[in-house]
């Protein structure tokens, strides 16, 4: 397949006509002025996005008594707080983290695959009902989750699957949003000519998808995976409805249940705060691990 994508000489763009303005400028050397401007904007925005995170971090270094003083300076209780977090309720927090990982990795992995196939089909084939299907998928995300919880619960209860891993995992493998994203990206990044070439080559439709399309769509697939991962990680409504056994809880629901006990047990607050901070760490690691795919995905799409 790789030969197909070989494009040693980029197709000559149509000869430029007019637009001498553009030609006067050197395209390669960036002016220090525009670099400085860009960096200023980026730094300001980074401060905006990160300062609330700093507030969370600083709170997680404090004891219950220090929290009441509400200053922004970090304190020294970070390690103690961590110990409290992981020992609270016989160390249930680590169990919650593992559950979340299971739900998020499993759910997002399958969701990405399904969404990629569906989006690809919607982008690259023409068939009756295509737009209808697309609109129905859009319709799927319009209902507020609060109204869908009951029917979903009743359905799972019918097959005795409430209060199991399946009840959280199965609904998370559907990502209508992922279908949207993958349709848009498949349309943009998988040229019809390549598909045709594949067919002439005798490759099956499925082979063209796995061998060619997924590679070209890689940056989009990574984005879909990442988003679905975060959605599952942060979703506590579905597990709240489905689960009764707190050993099956994902981390957000666990923290939420602690939070709801605060009026009776104020000392849990420290665990809730540092637990929130810790719960973000796996997401950051996932992001860091995935971000190289954006580049390599780009390479696969255009340079190979």
């Amino acid at each position, binding site marked *: 397949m790789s030969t197909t994508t070989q494009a040693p000489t980029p197709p000559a763009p149509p000869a430029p006509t007019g637009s001498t303005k553009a030609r006067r400028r050197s395209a390669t050397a960036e002016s220090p002025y525009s670099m400085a401007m860009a960096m200023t904007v980026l730094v300001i925005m980074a401060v905006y996005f990160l300062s609330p995170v700093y507030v969370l971090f600083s709170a997680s270094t404090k004891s219950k008594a220090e929290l009441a003083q509400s200053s922004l300076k970090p304190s020294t209780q970070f390690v103690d707080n961590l110990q409290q977090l992981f020992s609270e309720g016989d160390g249930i927090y680590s169990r919650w983290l593992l559950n979340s990982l299971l739900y998020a990795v499993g759910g997002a992995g399958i969701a990405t695959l399904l969404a990629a196939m569906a989006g690809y089909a919607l982008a690259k084939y023409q068939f009756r009902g295509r737009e209808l299907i697309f609109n129905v998928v859009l319709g799927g995300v319009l209902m507020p989750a609060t109204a869908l*919880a009951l029917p979903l*619960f*009743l359905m799972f209860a019918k097959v005795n699957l409430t209060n199991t891993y399946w009840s959280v995992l199965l609904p998370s493998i559907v990502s209508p949003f992922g279908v949207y994203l993958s349709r848009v990206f498949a349309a943009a990044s998988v040229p019809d000519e390549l598909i045709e070439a594949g067919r002439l080559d005798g490759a099956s439709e499925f082979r063209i998808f796995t061998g060619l399309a997924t590679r070209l769509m890689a940056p989009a697939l990574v984005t879909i995976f990442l988003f679905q991962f975060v959605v599952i990680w942060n979703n506590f409504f579905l597990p709240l409805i489905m689960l*009764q056994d707190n050993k099956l809880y994902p981390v957000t629901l666990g923290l939420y249940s602690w939070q*709801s006990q605060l009026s009776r*047990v104020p000392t849990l607050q420290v665990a809730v705060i540092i637990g929130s901070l810790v719960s973000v760490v796996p997401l950051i690691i996932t992001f860091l691990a995935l971000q190289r795919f954006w580049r390599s995905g780009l390479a696969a799409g255009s340079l190979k």
Partner: protein
Amino acid sequence: MTILRRTSHRHRLVLAGPAVALSLVLAACGGGGDDDKGTSAGAGSAPACKPSDGPVQLTFSTWVPGMEEVVKLWNADNPDIQVKVNSVPAGNAGTYQNFTNALKAGTAPDLGQVEYDSLPNFRLQEGLTDISGCPGIAEAEQKFVPWTWSQVDFNGSGGVYAIPQDTGPMALYYRKDIFDKLGLAAPTTWEEYAAAAKTIHDADPSQYITFFSQTDPNWYTGLYWQAGAQLFTNDGDAIGVDIEGNPAVEKVNDYWQGLIDDDLVAGNLQGFSEELYKAWNTGKVVSWVSAAWGYSTIRDNAPDTAGKWAVAPMPQWDAGGTAAGNWGGSSTAVLAGSDHPAEAAQFALWLNTDPEALALENKLGGLYPSSVDGLDIEALQQGVDFYGGQTIFDVFKQASAGVDPSFTWGPTMTDTYAALKDGIVGALSGNGTLDDATKDAQAKTVASLEAQSVPVAD
């Protein structure tokens, strides 16, 4: 998948995999239905309640911290009735919805924690089992503080639907040092309390005697309760809703509206908010009319004020009175569909009367018992350092006796509370009054009862 395999459910999960999708399709085709089987609550007089043969397994959903430890005591002594605790979020934070769904599907736990003000709602959903016929229940009444029992037997209207667990009799927490400095004694009447409010605010305009929370409508109904308001009546045929125009309600409204209008209470602080805690900690808010369980809220959130607080009985409408309100408190209910109501009732009774269990619940979960004997457990006899060594629970024990037992809740309290809360929001931001709030609460409550086809008396 590897993580799945490590769990104890391994067998079931692995087998379930392929079967799941198929069976779900079948369920979906079936329409997701709402069959009634298993959810019908016993009605009529003392339904039969036979113990099961052989060992049983019970599930118990609760949000009281440390309940696992208490249940360990039971499980050690009762090998044939093993209880599994589900530690869940607080009721209104989602667990009630979870119960409601599970009751519809017939998968509810055997036992669930239900607050008193939600019991009528669960009864309306046919979610509670009448356990009056179960062994030991008939004799249990005298073991509990009278008003708590009238909550679970619906004022003796037939049947027993839960076992009382904890209560929140109300009293006045106040900063004794500041009151002393200003020459104020603990106010014994609401009139004195208003006068103290003025003295305090005049002495330091940034200081308030208390705050008026918009997020705690059930705190405000606790004040109605003390004033003798009967918000709901039940003549057997129809529910009477008597919020708007109720003289006791208007009395309380007028009083607090006056304090709000004169800027004598802080209207911008919410219950259980960090801002409130800071105001406590820095002495900007110097008293709180609150429940017995509130002692730890102040203790743990305003550590800088240790030793400076004291507790006095709730201010009275009539000098020399002993009436108290109640805020919060839960029961342990046997939910509809339980296969073992006798054992479940037996466990619930033990949980809420056994001295060892009560002591542990108080220690780990901060529960203030409903059981008469429970009020005398050792931890409740001792002086509390944070309150200058005062034996504060003596005050609450006295308050507990002063709670009006005839007070009943409506079957759709969430709607009543929501309307009340929204009205309080208006009153605090100057868009309306507390009387407007109760007017709206009346209308919305009636509407929601009618939507449930519950007969409402005129």
